[in-house]
């Protein structure tokens, strides 16, 4: 019973910080960066054909693959441009969210920073963006939140004992 009360107390504190995540644009943008690099990459020296198989840049392809430049490069560029526009869209939508009070200053700065890296950082920026979105996807899972709660709850309980009117100030 005491544990439930403490959980409710922590939830009341935690919920406002959970606000401020990016929308679907960020996820699609990150996926587009990855897909674009898969279809044609000079960095990794590979390209992908219509048959979804990866080939080395030294081979130009055939009718089955659609061709390195005719299919791989063209598809990669189309996806890359889609991802770029979504990145810019996400960047500007954050401005709106912040102005509307849906996002705190610290979170806005972090989101804008990571978007700037994704937009200007080339392949490394794209990788950064993908990592950022994967991290967000994990931290928004109920299982992760439950694990985090249990971890800190046990730690606090070991340090200061079970929740009581005497130690409730530590929870806040």
């Amino acid at each position, binding site marked *: 019973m005491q544990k439930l009360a403490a959980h409710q107390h922590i939830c009341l504190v935690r919920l406002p910080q959970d606000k401020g995540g990016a929308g679907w644009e960020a996820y699609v943008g990150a996926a587009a960066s990855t897909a674009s690099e898969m279809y044609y990459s000079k960095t990794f020296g590979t390209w992908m054909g219509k048959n979804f198989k990866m080939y080395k840049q030294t081979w130009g392809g055939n009718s089955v693959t659609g061709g390195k430049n005719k299919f791989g490069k063209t598809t990669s*560029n189309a996806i890359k441009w889609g991802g770029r526009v979504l990145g810019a869209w996400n960047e500007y939508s954050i401005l709106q969210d912040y102005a509307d009070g849906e996002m705190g200053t610290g979170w806005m700065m972090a989101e804008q920073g990571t978007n700037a890296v994704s937009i200007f950082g*080339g392949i490394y920026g794209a990788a950064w963006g993908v990592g950022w979105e994967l991290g967000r996807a994990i931290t928004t899972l109920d299982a992760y939140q439950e694990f985090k709660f249990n971890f800190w709850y046990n730690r606090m309980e070991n340090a200061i004992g079970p929740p009581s009117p005497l130690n409730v100030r530590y929870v806040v």
Partner: protein
Amino acid sequence: MINVFYYYYYLFYTKVLPDNQPHSTVVFTLSFSLSLIINGFINVIFAYLANYNILYYIMVGIFVAIMVVNYLVFYRTRKGKRLVEEKTKFFNNHRLSIFLTLLFFLITTSFLFWGPIYIKYILNAR
């Protein structure tokens, strides 16, 4: 001025962070930098005069319009390739050109961080 920025953005995406298609990447990133200045000015003016925060899809629209213009000017006409061949610089000075391009990049990108705070401050103060 924009021509020099184009050339130095191009150098960045060929020498520092090599890209599969440096010209199209430059068109995108340069357009984004320019859109930050223009959207920033428009936002501040609207916040001051009309106490109004511009909707984000209008800002995205402005960015797309700038990108289309830059695409037509630099990409379709092959002006971008000519600028790279001519190695366009400020006063024929490589270091000055790098410095001014970096300054342009930092000023435009900084809007991402102080712009929203400043606009919110204006809107709340009125």
